[in-house]
């Protein structure tokens, strides 16, 4: 991390060669200007990093302008588009990602989530809409601006790793820095540092084909973080791994995020993974975002039948955290404390001895036993849950 400032401050030549444009080269270090969008501040006061307004991606339109009216995202008009032979892959997507947040986009295959994340980095050009990064219009960035931006501001991890087969682990991780024109000594030092962070020391000179899937994805992660980006895109990073490794990589991911505080957009088709990792989840269906919310909100108040069927089998007690059910204290605060992010499954046994309420650590809020038991009673699988306890 220490060197990131040096790396960032080195001007890529080609942005110097194009002095005409908007000034992206200054933007990575300035704070966001005032945002003109609805929720410029997160509930906990974090600033909006990436904002996405009415983004559409329509494939197969040829030269025609699609969508004909970006304001009209009614089911009828989207169906009419499908009838006419074009594929609306992303339909009117709007959301904000706050600085330091893990924003997970969850959907089944074909729901448009991979297309959406590629619109955010302009690997795919959106058909309509607005993508704002730190308050500046990303879609207005020129090609060379985009190159500069990707070099310093964005990192991405891919489902099938996207490693370069002819380069060693060390060269793969150092590849972005090499492309930026850094000297070998510099990129190599940084690459070694990143390799150590993802726990791959000793494999520096292996080729991707000699690594297991989990190890390959560690290389992918190290590479995406090598240039110390502020935005971290992960496109189904763990879907190609087997369940045990996946679990291990999720823990790794959370550990890294605790250290690095990146702004993250994470794509997955696995709802359990989404709830486990997310600060907030967006659920996509057929190109449309059907619900955005914290995991507990989605579990407790699904927006429609589709989401309800999705969360049906999720273990609620492992998704809802103490802070989700906490209320401002009305009376004196109890002595017994609980961590804000403890899941109910961990908290529940504390109430079995008759404790009425627990204090959320470091806050003036309490978690009452009656609220927890009410929730469990309302669950469709309440009997089973109680029996399990």
């Amino acid at each position: 991390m220490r060197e990131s400032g040096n790396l960032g401050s080195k001007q890529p030549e080609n942005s110097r060669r194009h002095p005409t444009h908007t000034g992206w080269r200054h933007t990575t270090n300035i704070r966001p200007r005032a945002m003109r969008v609805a929720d410029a501040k997160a509930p906990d006061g974090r600033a909006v990093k990436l904002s996405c307004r009415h983004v559409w991606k329509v494939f197969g339109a040829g030269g025609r302008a699609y969508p004909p009216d970006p304001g009209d995202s009614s089911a009828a008009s989207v169906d009419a588009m499908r009838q006419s032979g074009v594929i609306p892959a992303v339909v009117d997507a709007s959301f904000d990602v706050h600085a330091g947040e893990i924003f997970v986009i969850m959907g089944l295959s074909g729901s448009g989530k991979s297309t959406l994340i590629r619109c955010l980095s302009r690997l795919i050009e959106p058909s309509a809409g607005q993508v704002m990064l730190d308050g500046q219009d990303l879609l207005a960035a020129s090609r060379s601006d985009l190159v500069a931006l990707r070099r310093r501001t964005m990192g991405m991890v891919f489902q099938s790793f996207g490693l370069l087969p002819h380069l060693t682990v060390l060269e793969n991780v150092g590849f972005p820095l090499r492309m930026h024109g850094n000297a070998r000594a510099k990129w190599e030092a940084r690459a070694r540092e990143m390799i150590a962070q993802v726990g791959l020391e000793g494999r520096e000179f292996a080729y991707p084909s000699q690594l297991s899937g989990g190890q390959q994805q560690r290389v992918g992660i190290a590479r995406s973080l090598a240039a110390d980006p502020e935005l971290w895109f992960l496109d189904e990073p763990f879907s190609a791994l087997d369940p045990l490794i996946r679990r291990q990589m999720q823990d790794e991911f959370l550990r890294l995020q605790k250290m690095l505080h990146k702004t993250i957009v994470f794509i997955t088709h696995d709802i359990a993974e989404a709830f486990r990792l997310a600060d907030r989840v967006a659920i996509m269906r057929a190109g449309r975002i059907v619900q955005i919310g914290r995991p507990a909100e989605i579990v407790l108040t699904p927006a429609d039948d589709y989401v309800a069927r999705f969360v049906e089998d999720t273990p609620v007690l492992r998704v809802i955290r103490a802070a989700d059910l906490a209320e401002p204290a009305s009376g004196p605060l109890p002595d017994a404390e609980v961590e804000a992010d403890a899941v109910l499954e961990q908290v529940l046994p504390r109430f079995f001895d008759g404790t009425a309420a627990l204090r959320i650590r470091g806050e003036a809020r309490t978690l009452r036993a009656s609220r927890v038991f009410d929730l469990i009673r309302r669950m469709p699988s309440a009997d089973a849950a109680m029996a399990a306890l």
Partner: protein
Amino acid sequence: MLPLSGWINAVADAVVPVVQPYFRAVSTALSVPMQAIRQALIWLPWPAAALMICAAAAGAGGVRLVAVAAAAVVYVLLADYWIEAMNTLALVILAVPLSVAAGFAIGVMAWRWPQLGPVVTAALDLMQTVPAFAYLIPLLLLFGFGPVVGLIASAIYAIPPMVRNVMLGLERVPSEVTEAGLMAGCNPRQSFWHVTLPTALPQLLVGVNQTTMAALSMVIVAAIIGGFQDIGWEVLSSMRKAEFGQSILSGLVIALMAILADRITRGFADREAGGAGGRLAGRTIMVMFAVSLGLGFLLRFFLAGGALMPGGDVTRQYVTVLNQWVLALVQDHAALFAAIKNGVLYAFLLPLRIGVSGAATPYLWGFVMTPGLIALYGVVCAALAGWAFVSGRWRLAVFVIMAGTLLFTGLQAFPWPVFVLGLALMAYQSMGWKMAVFVAAGTCLILANGLWAALVQSLYLCVVAVLLSGLIGAALGLWAASSDRVSAAVRPVCDALQTMPQFVFLIPALMFFKVGEFTALIAIVLYAVVPPIRYVEHGLRHVDAGVMEAVTQIGTTPWQRLWHVRLPLALPVIMLGVNQTIMAALSMLAIAALVGTRDLGQQVYVALGKADAGMGLVAGLSIAFIAIVSDRLIHAWIGSGFAPEDGAGSLDGGRG
């Protein structure tokens, strides 16, 4: 008769004198490096050259490849063909970089601007189906006689596999890899040179391998016009003089060169693709090359010229013995060879050529087609067709009528309007009216140019060859699919057959069966037998294991499984094999003209002798026309949902 060839010649006569000086200049310019490489290779004492070859072998493969290389060097020395081999090698060394560079440029352009794709693909199809003899003539007119023409022809002939592999490799770079490059902040130039190209490199090297093999094959064929001291010329002249011992000796040199070139280039391709074990590092190879050069200098300066060559006289003596032995063998078993020849001739060739009506004579078949028999034949055909029509399969009915007529009259006497109509109908059925018009126009053009007889000869030779090699190949493939041991035994034979330049196949055929159609047939079958073996085995072996388990569990017999499950499921793959067989047969047709046929290939060859560019091109294009139509027909028949599995496209002439 449409004087299309005359027109071409008129145009050529007008254009050639104008542009000739420029092309002659190119020719002169190319002859400088060619002479330099030739002189250098001949100057280099053989121990030094041998060391270099072995170093390359060590870099490409393991100890075994080095042993093969060493054995090849020893053989070439003992057979006393060192200088000839070096001359051929010089041509290949110059032709390969030319083709690779041109192929790379064309492939990258076709990938970068996809709208160029159809044009490039059509051009490649033509380059690979028009026999090289046909464009040798314009090349001769433009560049003048000499080895440079052979060089240019080889370079042209060897471009298509490179282009196809470049396009394939670049297209197959996973989008995630390219995206990862973009997200790493590559600008477009970096993205191509640092991400796309290195990822596609293994496929590109496969292209280099195929290009090398094509160049080698063509260099040897080009000896027909070049006639300078290279190995192709040796084979050709010894075949013409009926010195079969000599031609076997020199043919083996070609075979060894082909095998070495194939294994070494393929070894480097595999090495890039990831396997690393047991090979010399690039730096070590370079050091060994330098050492070889040093050794070469030392030997040249301290030993008198030629002192190192083993005695050619001794070898010559043995060659004479070998010549006599081969001749004696053929003479001793003349009855056997005649029996084989006549059997195939009467059973396959004659009925197709002159039909049942012509072949059924007391002299040939022992009976005559009496009016009664003819009537019976007609009734049986009509009944079969009627039955097919009644059961709702009108296409089968049409086919039965056409096949019946064909078998009766033979291809030679088959009425051409029926032929054109039938072919157009087939094209219309499988690919729509555009293809039907193309087919009809193409056949009419061939008719109008007076090539009908030659076309029929080609078709007939090709049909017989495809049938024979299909039968033999399918039987072998079936056997190989059911037995691992057979499969392991067949594979190296197939490899070797596919590596051989087409020219080599003429030697054994000519040796045993003398000049004639049957000899051509044998050579074609030898060359075209590999695809059916490969594809039948691959198709049968790779039927989904789950399906096989399911039908075994149902309680099917092995025969039922083969007939009802494996064959139908493998059919698309097998049809690809048929396609490859046809392509191989057609490409061999032109070479087979050397041993006396009367087909389009012979027209090309005759035109080559008379330097008649128009005739050669028209006949060559006719062969290409047959190839392209049959390729499209088979691919349409396999169905649009089926993508070819072989690496580099449909018309890749059976080289894997």
